[in-house]
């Protein structure tokens, strides 16, 4: 299978309203919220969706070698990480993925939380976080769908730089391979993605 970078300039996902509420601390049966407040929060969520522009990228990369301590990609790039190596054990390929909610929503959150409307700011922030995660799930779902025809599938779960011994500095490598600048993401000297509602992850291809 050729490794070709796929850019998704416009990802549409069903609005994860319940997940946004849960991220904000809503607990079914415990949290009490009247119709007026619910209407306000829903309005803020709708506002968030008018600002969020989900984009993503995905790249299948052959795995040249997976030892207990190291993962070597077909591109020659290496990652030293026991946990990632364990996660990718038995896989012949890896899938690198990235997604962002875009810059406009971050500008709005900043404006709201630095003196505007902080209630709206926290709701929009939660919506952007949930929707970015959902965009990654969408990319995973797409590749799983394509892999079905090859009688293969992705590992359950995904692994991101910055967790365990998969050092955050390796986010630079993932960023470069995914050419995330093409969807408006930058990476700073601390290997943090900007806009900060941006994420990358690695999954394995099995079967």
């Amino acid at each position, binding site marked *: 299978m050729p490794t070709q970078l796929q850019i998704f300039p*416009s990802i549409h996902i069903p609005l994860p309203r319940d997940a946004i509420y849960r991220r904000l601390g*809503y607990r079914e049966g415990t*949290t009490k919220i009247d119709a007026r407040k619910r209407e306000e929060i829903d309005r803020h969520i709708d506002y968030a969706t008018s600002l969020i522009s989900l984009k993503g990228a995905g790249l299948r990369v052959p795995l040249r070698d997976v030892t207990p301590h190291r993962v070597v990609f077909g591109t020659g790039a290496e990652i030293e990480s026991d946990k990632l190596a364990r996660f990718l054990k038995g896989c012949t390929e890896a899938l690198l993925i990235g997604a962002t909610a875009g810059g406009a929503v971050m500008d709005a959150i900043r404006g709201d939380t630095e003196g505007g409307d902080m209630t709206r700011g926290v709701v929009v922030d939660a919506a952007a976080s949930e929707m970015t995660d959902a965009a990654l799930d969408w990319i995973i779902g797409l590749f799983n769908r394509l892999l079905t025809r090859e009688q293969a599938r992705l590992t359950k779960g995904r692994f991101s730089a910055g967790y365990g011994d998969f050092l955050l500095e390796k986010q630079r490598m993932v960023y470069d391979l995914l050419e995330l600048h093409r969807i408006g993401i930058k990476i700073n000297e601390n290997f943090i993605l900007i806009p900060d509602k941006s994420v990358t992850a690695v999954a394995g291809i099995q079967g």
Partner: protein
Amino acid sequence: MSLKDRIKERIIILDGATGTELQKKGMPAGACPEIWCLENPGIIGAVHSSYRDAGADIVTTATFGANRVKLSQYGTHDVARVNRDLALLARSAVGAGVLVGGDIGPTGRFVRPFGDLDFEDAVEIYKEQVRGLLEGGVDLFLIETMIDIQETRAALIAVKELTDTFTSVTMTYEAHGRTLNGTDPVTALITLQSLGADAVGCNCSTGPEEMLGLIEAMKPWATIPLVAKPNAGMPELIDGATLFTMREDTFASFGAQFVSKGANLLGGCCGTTPEYIRRLKEAVAGGRSIPPARDSISAVSSARSSVILEGRRALSIVGERINPTGKKPLQEELLEGRMSLVRTMAKEQERMGASLLDVNVGMPGIDQKKSMLEAIGSLSVASDLPLVIDSSDSNVIEAALRLYPGRALINSISGEREKTERLLPVAAKYGAMFILLPLTEGNVPETAEERKKIIEAVFAKAAALGFAKADIVVDGLVMAASSDSKAPMETLKTVEWISDVFKANTIIGLSNVSFGLPERPSLNAAFLAMAVSKGLTMAIANPGVEEVMNSSVAADLLEGRDRDAAAYIRYFSRRPPEAKGKRVPSHEVPADPVFQAVLDGNRDDIESVLSRALEAGGDARKIVDGSMVPAITKVGMLFDRREYFLPQLIASAEAMKKGIAYLEPWLGDAGPAKRQKGRIVIATVKGDVHDIGKNIVTLMLRNQGFEVTDLGKDVPAGTIIQEAARIKPSVIALSALMTTTMVNMREVVELAGQQSLDCQFMVGGAVVTKAYADSIGAHYAKDGVEAVRVAEKLTLGKDSDRDLSS
């Protein structure tokens, strides 16, 4: 006998999987299937003939990925030759008596507005493939495994612009019943059958059991045969290999159910083999094919939803807001090529209850075609509602229909010659519905009788192009009551005749009736209710006008369109009290309105509530200490118990902040400076750009009377210590969201120790734990409420309640 005729007689059997059969016969992983087949003609020929022998009426060419995008990944560019040769190979393998279906699959890219592949490029890519397949003599086309409705449209248009050969289109649905891009099967059906598909359905997706429901959902709305090609069950990971485990007989046992649900063509997808197809054929032998239930359908669709406009359904409101006339901000945005206000208006109207959105971008100085295409692209991503393409320019409408990823409603086609001659064929080509406007050249007919003649004349021209009455919505033609008091009654007569005699859907541009009169919402609402009683099915209106929306749901109920009053009750129970027009009676005025306003997070009313409290002789300091502080304390308690969640906590904190600011002139010597409980320096540590949590803590601390200096985010340890040395806080509060930046908290603590700073540390953030805080000698706070408590504890007896204003 044509395929269409054969489908009427019996179930047509398609073949099963090709890819997995090729893998079994030696195709290596990573090979280009199309090129491998051309290099191994005997093997693919054997696969085709084995399906023929199994009883397939149609075998599929091995051209699923034979498009320019996919083939070029393997270094092959002669798309037409690959398709032609593979089609010839299939024909040669199966001989006469079995049909050869030219297989067309996704390019792997998404098409605008959902991706970066230009729509016309997508059409051209598919035309290249279609030409090759036609050269190879295919009998029909099978567009399959599609995920993106826009790419599917591009493929179908490519076929239809080159040939009238039978074309089946199947999409792939996830377990939740939608494609990955969110299209449900009924929406796909409405879009694709109106665009000219000869059969529509689903393939791949799931196993047969799950696919039955998709076929069942489509059947009532189908004007064409339905296709089902399920996988051999859901794939399972067994010993590192992904396998389809459903047995042949189990797979075949679903055949009869598919027939009873209305499938007309049956086959298999991933994991199926000739044996599955043989068993399937045996299972449905003799079964009667259920024909489509209808010849036409009144329905429109977007990429992700559809609206059926038939039967005694609730009135559909077409949101009229996306129109620059009289809206300067929208005019400016459109001229600058921005679409954020368009998206916001769409979301607002959707929330207010619109079923469709009218899109009009006509204004002086604008490239209307460019603007309309941008608006359609933007709205197709931002909103699920079907669009009404509203323009006086036929070229704009044609361009919009080509790009629109659904079945649109055109606003409008009148009896004017230019409109009927130019737009009716365009509407027919793209399968759009249209609003029939009973106007002719320079003539606005005043009476219902005159309008009827125009309606019948325009419809006769439309019928000649294949339109049914279900495909049109007739405008009742609303004129202003202020200029002719008889005009509204003529409109109602027209609506009644269209509804009862002509038997078509009706629409009115509601607000025209009140033009030039005061209290327009009341008049509009009354007229709407009257029109609903005459059978009105749609109204172009502003769903943000409460009177209109209230009238709409009330009229639906009274007209028997709202069974058990369910929609009416749901509508009014969801509206917040003030939107319902409810006024709080005097006996319901809370005992302490200030307390209640903070508790409710009522930022809008806190100032007026405080104003009334002051006017009633209240003392500002007592209001703060006796009402506001207890209220915010109770909010913290409710938050701790999870009875409040974050937005409620923040709203109350903001109400408190706003209230304190309002009271400041009255607080005098008891003002904020005198309330200081202690000084706190707060920052998000070096390397971390996340600061919303820190901002929340800052708000909470300030509300409780702390003097907080916020140093911002990504702040180096040296800067924090330098500022702390200058400000001399009781507490340094540090925030971090990531494990990689959390470690920088330790550096701050250690640096403070080196410089002998006399202060305590409080830390928090998503990844920070109490154990970590303990390990660096800091205090931990899990959220803003706890941060206040920790800060109070740390400052108690130190500089609490000291006058820190100096």
